[in-house]
């Protein structure tokens, strides 16, 4: 079974694959422009609740607000 969890639930240095983005058209678009597309590997670099998260994706580090990161759904098991 494939697990689907919000990006924010990853612990630091944990990696996962982006499954989908739960958001409106604007957010989905913005995030896909930055590289958050289906099947892309992300790594949680820094996360301290409350506050923004820092993730690594496609060779860049991107800081996201926690609310936005909650809407990015990832699968930590498909990490291969």
């Amino acid at each position, binding site marked *: 079974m494939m697990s689907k969890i919000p990006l924010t639930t990853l612990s630091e240095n944990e990696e996962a694959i982006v499954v989908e983005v739960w958001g409106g058209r604007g957010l989905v678009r*913005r995030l896909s422009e930055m*590289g958050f597309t289906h099947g892309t590997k992300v790594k949680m670099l820094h996360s301290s609740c409350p506050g923004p998260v820092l993730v690594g994706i496609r060779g*860049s580090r991107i800081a996201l607000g926690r609310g936005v990161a909650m809407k990015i759904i990832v699968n930590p098991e498909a990490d291969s």
Partner: protein
Amino acid sequence: MTIRVAVIGNPNVGKSLIFNNLTGGRAHVGNWPGKTVEKKEGKCRHKGVEMQIIDLPGTYSLTANSIDELIARQYIVNEKPDVVIDIVDASNLERNLYLTTQIMELEANMVIALNKCDIADQLNYEIDVKGLSELLRVPVIPTVATTREGMTELKDAVLGAVKGKPTERLVKISYGKQLDRLILRIEKALQKDEELCMKYPTRWLAIKLLEGDKEVLGIINESSSKDEVTDQLLEAVG
């Protein structure tokens, strides 16, 4: 004759470094994105031709949603630079080429600088530069901004692009049969306004209208073809 050259690309691909290499300028370069929020200008001479170089803010896209993207877009649309250098991170092609497609839709006279080739090499990426160039019908120049590799070739390509006819190498990006048909219908309605067609690429306007782009909707509001375009759009939305 002075030719105007705009430099554009995703954040943190080395735009400012290439800008400095070209102009001998000292724009602040830092290894973090978003260094360039305003546009910067500089000059350079190559083979007797004066080039005015404009460094645009780094963007992932060219929507009307944020000020930096709008600055970059309005510059390309309104000022119509002779050549646009699109700086693409070779170690991160997929995401970078999205912006490239946006610039293609603006029908800009583009030259691609495939930067960070050294990093792509380290990652063992093999990029088919010739294939990429043929596919996009745009000159693609491999560069390493940090060591100034490819700068002369880049300037040569810019001069070559000025002489060439960009209309002959226009590539239309298909959105699938259904949408393409719709885009074409909206384009036809737009073409009733000749002044508008002189100023903007109609296919780009049509696509942005379907996306609900606020700035472009505003432009159409002032146009003489407003009613026809609105009819087509309403029909499209159903």
